[in-house]
Structure formats: C-alpha cells, structure tokens
C-alpha cells in the first residue's frame, strides 16, 4: 500500500472508475445511422437520433453482441434478461429529452480486471457492471459569439459504461486499470479506446480515508479524457480532500471537472443540484432476452486476451514478465512479436522488438501498425545476425536504414557493403597492419597489460569498418598477440 502523507498522518485514496467506451459498430445503438468519427456535422443523423415525432428505437443486434463480447472478456456475468430504461433530463444535445440506458438490470454484471503494475506485481480490480446506453450529441460553443450549435452525429451512438468497484488505491493503479481495460477492449475489437477522439472517457470517483477506516465521502470527476489526466486528477483531488479534512472541514459529495489548463478540479454541481433522472423502463423497447446458446457462440469466438497471452509468452517463449507485459499490451505488438519470433530465438526477437523497434517507433510517434519495418524484415535481420552475415553492431546500423527506407535488410547489407568479413586471410592482414602500427602497445600487452586487448579489437574493427567477424577477430588476434 502506498499512502499519502498528511499533517495528521497517512491517508489512503479510494478510487472507482466509470469508463464510457464507444462500441465499434457501423450503426448506432437504436438507429441505422452511421457512426464514423469526424464526419461533417449533422451528416450522420436519422430521424430517430434527432427525436422526430413518432420515431422509435430498434435495438442494433451488433451492439448487443459487442457488449456481451466485452462482458465475456471481463470474465463477467452475462445477464440473459436486461432492461433499457429512460434517463430523463433536458439538454440541447439530447434530442429525446432522455437517454436510453440501463439502470437496474444491466446486460453485464460482476467481472474483474487484473492490473499489471510496474513493479511486476498484479492486482485484481472488480468490475461492478457494464451497461449499454446512447451517447448524446455535441454542443459547439465556438461557432458563434452568442449562439450554440448542435452536432447530432454522435447522438445515439452506442456506449458501454463499465463501472469498477472502489478497489483502486493509487493514481498508478487507476492508470493501469484504464490501460488494461483499453487493451482488453482493443483485443476484443469492441472499442477502439481512442481517448483523444472521445471514444473512451472516464468518470473518476475519489475519496480519502485513514487506513482501515470506512470509506469517506466521494467526489466524481467527470469526463476525463486521457490516462495522464486521470492520474493527475486523482492526485490533485486526493490532496484537496485531505487538506479540507485536516483543516477541520468535511467533503461535500459533488460532481467536479478536471481543468486541463490549470491542473485543478473544479466544482460542477453539488448533490443538491444533482438531476433527478426519473429512470423508468423504456416502453418503446421490450426487455432484452438473450439466448444462452448465442452467448456461448460469442464466447467460442473470443480471441486470446492479454492475461492469457502474457502467461503463454512467459511459458512458451521464456520471456520476462516485464517483456511479456510490454508485448501483450497491444494485440498488434504481440502479433508482431510472434511473427518475428517464429522459428527464431524468442529472447532475441523480444529484445529487438521491445528495444530497437519500440524505441524508433516512439521517437517517430508511430504506432506498430505504421512501422516501416515489417515483422518479416525484422526477422530477416535477426537471421542475418544468426548466420554471421552481419554482426549485432552492424545490425543496428542496418535497422536504422530499414526504419528509414523500409527496405529489406539483405538489400541494405549488400548495397552498403556491410557483409561481415569472415575471410581469415583478410582479417589476418588487418590485424597484422594494426599490430605493426602499434608495436609499443604490443610490447605493453605482452608484458602483462591485458586490458589493451580491447584496444586492438577496436582498432581492427575500425580498420575493417566493423565488418570483421568479431569472434574471428578475437581468436586470431589472441593467437597473434600471444605468439
């Protein structure tokens, strides 16, 4: 446990997260309108989404399937009977005047997420529930000095609200939770997890307490849209609450906002101003009844999820838990690694993928999917090392060229003449030249200054532009020096 040090001693943060994840589907939750991000405002709006008179919602089966898939991925209870309710409130970007959501009977019940913490340990966080609901439209306040414009493209898009138990105790855990959840959703193909585009958003519930004491009063920080902000908001909010309590005050339950420019949380509305949503079952929709066999079918099509993959990578490839974590965090990374590792030394493959490749990608701000170096080519590079065509050192140079040009390693080696010299005659000639030019150092070495061996190797490599096979250089050099 890591506690926050206050004036009156240690404090523990209690964190629960509500994540809104936009469902990947071509059509909206209750209408046939398209869902693509970034379209012209109000170009993806049906009469249902705009709540025209007499329009009725019809459940999109694809969205239900995605929610069930997600539930199964979270090892959660799938509720074969669930109910859609109306959550009533007025806002300009909510055309119906209510959001169709699920309240008392959600489609998915209790599940869990295993967090992989930086120290290599793991921790299980409970998932309370997952329910489906409609997204609202967007208010555009910056189009006109006095007016607000409404874009309804997002209105009616399916969201999964995934609610955690208040099981997290540090900002890092909360960050790990969001990362892990996002990873699972991406593996499942149920949400793209793109927080910048708003397809994944977090409401963060934070309270503080003395270790072992009952839960304190919580504040909810709405709509936090990056993992970094989630962590910063928790840190700030916890300290704010501790200060208030230590100064003799008490926490008011309220909804707050994270100010991304001032790095503070601000009050949005108090408990007294909270909406009375007047939830009731939507009479336009019958309760949702799922067929157990259909759920089983979905279960059979689930991909291998990060936890299982990690275990397999450790077992099958003998990777360290850390490397395995890094590789499985995204399915595309894991797939890339496996393609490289196939028929090769997995440890070497992992080193090249997590070291060189991720380093270059990071610097270039690229995702694995955009990597100029294909798995096939990286594998080819490793093969060139294995068959002594190039040395590991030269391989780094080749990799750099591969990253720049996307060319095959063998072509680069040929073009740049980087093929390793294994011709003992040529190596011997180079060594002889080096020894001749450094007769004084040879004498020093022979009188016992062993450390100079490295110097000679360096000189030989320099003379051969690094292409000499290091093992041969070592061997011949040693023989000649000792001779």
């Amino acid at each position: 446990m890591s506690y926050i040090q206050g004036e009156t001693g240690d404090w523990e943060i209690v964190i629960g997260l509500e994540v809104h994840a936009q469902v990947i589907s071509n059509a909206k939750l209750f209408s046939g309108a398209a869902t693509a991000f970034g379209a012209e405002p109000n170009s993806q709006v049906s009469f249902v989404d705009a709540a025209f008179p007499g329009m009725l919602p019809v459940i999109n089966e694809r969205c239900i399937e995605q929610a069930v898939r997600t539930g199964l991925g979270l090892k959660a209870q799938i509720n074969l009977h669930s109910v859609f309710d109306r959550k009533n409130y007025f806002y300009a970007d909510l055309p119906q005047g209510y959001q169709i959501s699920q309240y008392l009977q959600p489609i998915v019940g209790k599940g869990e997420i295993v967090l992989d913490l930086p120290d290599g340990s793991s921790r299980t966080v409970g998932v309370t529930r997952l329910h489906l609901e409609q997204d609202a439209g967007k208010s555009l306040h910056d189009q006109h000095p006095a007016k607000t414009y409404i874009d309804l493209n997002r209105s009616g898009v399916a969201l999964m609200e995934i609610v955690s138990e208040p099981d997290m105790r540090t900002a890092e855990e909360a960050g790990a939770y969001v990362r892990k959840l996002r990873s699972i959703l991406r593996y499942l193909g149920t949400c793209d997890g793109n927080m910048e585009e708003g397809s994944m958003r977090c409401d963060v519930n934070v309270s503080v307490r003395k270790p072992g004491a009952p839960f304190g009063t919580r504040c909810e920080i709405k709509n936090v849209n990056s993992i970094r902000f989630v962590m910063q908001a928790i840190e700030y909010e916890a300290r704010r609450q501790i200060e208030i309590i230590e100064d003799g005050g008490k926490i008011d339950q309220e909804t707050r906002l994270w100010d991304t420019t001032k790095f503070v949380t601000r009050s949005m509305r108090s408990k007294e101003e909270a909406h009375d949503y007047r939830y009731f079952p939507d009479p336009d929709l019958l309760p949702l009844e799922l067929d157990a066999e259909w759920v089983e079918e979905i279960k059979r099509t689930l991909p291998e999820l990060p936890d299982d993959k990690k275990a397999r990578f450790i077992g099958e490839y003998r990777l360290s838990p850390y490397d395995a974590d890094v590789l499985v965090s995204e399915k595309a990374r894991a797939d890339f690694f496996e393609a490289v590792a196939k028929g090769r030394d997995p440890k070497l493959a992992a080193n090249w993928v997590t070291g060189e490749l991720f380093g270059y990608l990071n610097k270039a701000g690229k995702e694995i999917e955009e990597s100029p170096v294909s798995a096939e080519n990286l594998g080819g590079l490793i093969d060139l090392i294995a068959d002594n065509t190039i040395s590991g050192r030269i391989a780094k140079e080749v990799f750099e060229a591969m990253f720049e040009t996307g060319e095959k390693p063998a072509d680069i080696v040929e073009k740049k003449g980087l093929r390793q010299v294994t011709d003992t005659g040529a190596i011997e000639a180079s060594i002889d030249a080096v020894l001749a030019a450094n007769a004084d150092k040879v004498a020093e070495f022979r009188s016992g200054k062993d450390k100079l061996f490295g110097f000679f190797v360096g000189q030989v490599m320099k003379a051969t532009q690094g292409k000499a096979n290091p093992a041969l250089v070592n061997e011949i050099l040693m023989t000649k020096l000792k001779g």
Partner: protein
Amino acid sequence: MTGLTHLTMAAALDGLAKKEFTAVELTEAHVKAVETIRPLNAFITETPEQALTMAKASDARRAKGEAGPMEGLPIAVKDLFCTKGVPTTAASHILDGFKPEYESTVTSNLWRDGAVMLGKVNLDEFAMGSANITSHHGNVISPWSPGEVGNWSRQLVPGGSSGGSAAAVAARAALGATGTDTGGSIRQPAAFTGIVGIKPTYGRCSRWGVVAFASSLDQAGPMTRTVEDAAIMLRSMCGFDPKDSTSVDMAVPDFRTALTGDIRGLKVGIPKEYRVEGMPAEIAAIWDQGIAWLKEAGAEPVEISLPHTKYALATYYIVAPAEASSNLARYDGLRYGLRVEGASLKDMYENTRGAGFGKEVRRRILIGTYVLSAGYYDAYYNKARQVRTRIKWDFDEAFKQCDVILTPTAPSTAFAIGEKMDDPIQMYLNDVFTVPASLAGLPGMSVPAGVGSDGLPLGLQLLGRPFDEETVLRVGQVIEKAAAVTATPPFMA
C-alpha cells in the same frame, strides 16, 4: 352524387368494382362533404388535391386489375399520424409548421391498400382528453348537436381524443377514419357519435410514425360506420413492423371472414365490478339489452369478476402521464415546431414549452414528472405498474371462463361543451370502462347499441382475448344487427 358519402365501405367497394362510380367521383363527393361539415371543426388540414390525385391513381390501379382491399375509399387521418409532406400537428401549438418527411406505417399500409386521404382530423392535444376540447385548433362539435348548424342550441362534444375522426365519419364526410386509443380514445368517441371503433390488441398496429402519448398504451385502430367496415379497415392497418419493437410478428387475418353471425355457445363475460355506483339507468338498461341480444343469438352470458377494476383509472392516470412526461420532452424548440427564444437555453425551454403546450398537456406532464420523481416513484409509478399486472391477471382469469366480455363503453351519452370542464377528475371518469383493457393491452370495440333518452347514441363495448379481434368483431356485428340503430346525426354532409 351525395348518396356516395352515405355508403358503407363495403358498399362503396362493391360500387367501385361494378363501375357504378369511380374513385374520383367518390372522392369528389367526399371532398365536398368535408367542406360542408366545416362548422364542426373536424378537420385541421384538408388535402383535397392530394385526395384527387390519389383517387385518380386508384382508378388507374383498378383499371389494371390491381385493386387493393381498400381501393378508392376516402378516409380521414387523425392528425397524430405523421403524413409525408402534410402538416402534422397533434393538435398542439408546439408542432407549428411541422411537416414530416416520412409517412407513418399505419397510413402507409392504408395507402398501399388503395385508400385515399381526405385530410388530417382534429383531436385533443397530443390525444390527451375525452371531449376534443383541448385542441390548439379549437374544439370539435358533434354532428349530433341539436339546433341549427352553426347556431346549435347545445354544442355537444364528439368525445375524445379521436373526436375529429368520430365527427367526420358520423357526419358522412369520410367512409372511415384512423383513430388512436390510449385509454379509450377510439371507443368513447365512437360511442358518443354512434359509430364503430375498435382498438386492436397492443402490438397489432405499428406505432412508428404516430406521435407518441403513452407508448405502452397507444394503439391505432379504425373508426367506421359498420362493424364490417371496421373489419376491412383494421386488416389494412395491422401488420408487423420491424421499425416498432413492440409490434407483434403475427399473421393478420382477413377479419371480414370472421363475421359469420354465429355466436352460438360463445360465453360472454359480464364483469360485476363494472356495475359502478351511480351508473345511469339507461346505461344499465342498454347493457342488459345487449346481454339479452347475445343470449337470443345463442351465446351464454356468464358473470365474471375483474376485482382490480376499481384501481384501473388511478393506475392509468399514473402510467399514461409518466410516459407522456418523457415522450413530450423532445418538444423543446430546438429542431422542429415552435420555438420561443429566451436569454438562455433554460429560458428557451420554458418559453417554448410554456407557450406550446396547452393546459391539459401541461397538467399531465406535471403529474407524470411527479410520479416518476425520487421519493414518489415507488408509491406511484412502481405501485401502478404492479397494479397494472394485477389487472392483466384479472383478464387472464376471466378469459378462462368466457370468450368475450361485454360492458358499456362510456358512463353517459355525449355531454355539452362546458360541462365537466372545471373538474379534470370528472372528465377522467369518462374512461372508466375503457382503461382496464388498455392497461391489459386487449382488443376492445365500441358498437352502436341504441340511443338514450336525450336521443343521443349509446355504445356497448366488447373486449377480447389478446389477438382475438375476430371474436370481438363477430359478436360486435351481432349486436349491431340486433340493435339496428336507425338514428342519424341531425347534421350530415
């Protein structure tokens, strides 16, 4: 050819088939009739040009041998059904200027089967009312009102909320009209104006494109002058619609073939709880008369009990406003209809909804919001849902002992405008016999059964098992024939 407007649908179909007249002639006669009955304020929007265009197309189809089941029949459409390119108002100020870009499923079905649209008829605002006095477009006057046209000695209400539909059909300005029934809005006006009105089982008619009042109760149905016509029109209106999740995927029978007149051995349930205290003698008398007619035709009356009947009205007036308060939230001035600007979004909402909704609609929104509020939800809305289930069970039990249920449709004949208007509870009592079947989702029909001491129509109501409209129609026709009501409204086109 004014005689054309007095035909039944069945007779008109016959005449069209025999080429005694064309759909254009039939429609022209009705277009004129619509003009004639303008003093009744039954229509909000007349569509004579569209009617004639549709009639011409209908004649062309018939000539090609492609006549549909309602080919060439001019009808009126309750202005709660969205009609493409034709203003749809729900009789509310808040839908000013709203012209849908889509056609409701029910009206699409009617046009598919050859019907011709005469126009959009008046109703209570958002179908909330029992007298057609809450319309923003003014009240509808019953063609049964005594005295000189336009200078009536007593302005009677046509009932509601489908008052314009009832008045237009009773006054011979349309062969039939669509209605919608949430708690009795087809059956009670049918009874008040001496016509037939059937609300089918919930789920028979698609609600897609019908302006919603209370989604779990709303159901469309036909209003016609005979049971046979109701059977014809109902068949065209019904049918599964994937766009309405509560629509039921069941074959639609040819209801006309159910009209055999043979009800021998049928058990007719007479619910004892419907003999409400203070029931006027003539209502009790017509009910007894109905029982006698059915007995004569070979049916067997059985007393049944629907013990939760006394809670039905209260339950209805919680459930319906609760749903309405949410359904009407979309009328916010933002996307269509009336907008009254304000300094802030909240001001705009308040200005728009304050100006756009009439008093009765505002009352029901307030009631609905209240019964769904935290702290009151369990006592009202949840309790009402539980009682609703009990009411449904009552019917399930009753239908183990009988095949159809007979009751009066309304507790009185039509009243005059101005009466019962200060006290909403008095007004709500009009629905006492009709709401239980609405809550249970059962088919219900009102059939003309006679006239009261004031010379005004009285109706009897038949309730059936879910999706057994056929028995309801068959028994209804037996009553219709036995009653053989000859009285007609003093004012007809």
